[in-house]
């Protein structure tokens, strides 16, 4: 049996006790036994994959287990185990940048318009052009139809709607749309017209969800990829914002 010292923030889960008993042949076994004795403590010691949470530091008889055998450190009767949190945090993501959401919405409206027009006029080549412009825009880091937005702004028909946001997810969303439309264009070339129109409809529908419901599915996908640490996807949603939604502040 080992004596385990519980840090203040975890005492509410051990009936307020500062020291409790648990048994096991190794550090990990003692902690797992502790989790069985105090089930509500478990989620604060272990993360979803069963490993110890990053803030959990374990000392055995005053020695950090990282200098011993880690979680496999052997425990003998009467050993004293201390759980000491290391506290970490910080503002995390890089600073947000101004993103003009009026330009994004104009872009979506123009994309929907051209794709609908392409369908009505049975003009697959227009789908290919829109797809190519979207790919080009993503490479240049701006909306494909930024020129139309600038024109409408100059005419006084639109006003900027600048929000503190991450530009990368929007760029990724446009890239995704461009790729899907390019696949659609390829389908037309290969004679699979219904597949081509199907892919066109997907892009038009996602642009519509973005324009009318304010949900950027491509951006949400970007944030999910960032969450699972896919290289090249590093940004987190702006504070207080669900992935893919417009920033609230």
């Amino acid at each position, binding site marked *: 049996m080992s004596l385990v010292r519980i840090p203040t923030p975890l005492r*509410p889960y051990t009936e307020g006790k500062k020291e409790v008993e648990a048994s096991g042949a190794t550090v990990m076994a003692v902690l797992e036994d502790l989790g069985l004795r105090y089930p509500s403590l478990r989620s604060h010691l272990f993360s979803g994959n069963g490993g110890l949470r990053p803030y959990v530091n374990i000392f055995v008889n005053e020695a950090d287990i990282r200098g011993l055998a880690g979680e496999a450190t052997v425990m003998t009767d009467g050993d004293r185990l201390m759980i000491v949190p290391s506290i970490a945090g910080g503002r995390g993501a890089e600073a947000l940048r101004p993103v003009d959401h009026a330009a994004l919405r104009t872009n979506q409206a123009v994309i929907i318009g051209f794709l609908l027009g392409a369908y009505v006029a049975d003009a697959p080549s227009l789908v290919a052009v829109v797809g190519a412009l979207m790919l080009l825009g993503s490479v240049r880091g701006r909306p494909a139809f930024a020129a139309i937005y600038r024109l409408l702004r100059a005419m006084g028909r639109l006003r900027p709607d600048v929000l503190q946001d991450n530009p990368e997810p929007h760029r990724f969303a446009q890239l995704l749309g461009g790729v899907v439309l390019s696949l659609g264009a390829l389908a037309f070339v290969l004679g699979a017209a219904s597949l081509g129109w199907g892919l066109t409809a997907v892009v038009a529908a996602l642009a519509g969800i973005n324009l009318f419901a304010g949900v950027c599915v491509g951006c949400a996908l970007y944030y999910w990829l960032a969450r699972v640490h896919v290289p090249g996807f590093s940004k987190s949603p702006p504070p207080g914002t669900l992935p893919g939604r417009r920033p609230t502040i």
Partner: protein
Amino acid sequence: MTILLPAVHVREIGLHGESAYPEEGAGVLLGLIEDGDLRRVRRTLPLPNRWEDETRTRRYRIDPLDLLDAEEKAEQDGLTILGIYHSHPDHPPRPSDFDLERALPFYTYIITEVRSGGAVESRAWRLAEDRGRFEEEGLTVVPDPMEDR
């Protein structure tokens, strides 16, 4: 869910954030839990930011041994560690996803925005029981207790 913070400690937390700028500064809040869930801060204890690399401008880490030491100091004075304070240089005083992943239950996290080197606003947060988010805690600035005057 409210934390009472005497004005002197608001200034201390702000000054610590300003002196650490552009890096993040952090420390612990010592005090007592009064009837129900009312928390009263009696002392603040600045601690070194031990984050290992140059990203201390957006990260902080309090070493376990520093925290253990602080816990012992608190107990000597009959106090308890109520929570942690840290600064967000040029960033709103809201917890980040990074804060959320590493947050401990029970602690009150006071975050202070330090904009261009000046402390602007402090807000208090506590980890929700399901660990999925932070809940904002009331932060009430109270007059300094007599012994501090």
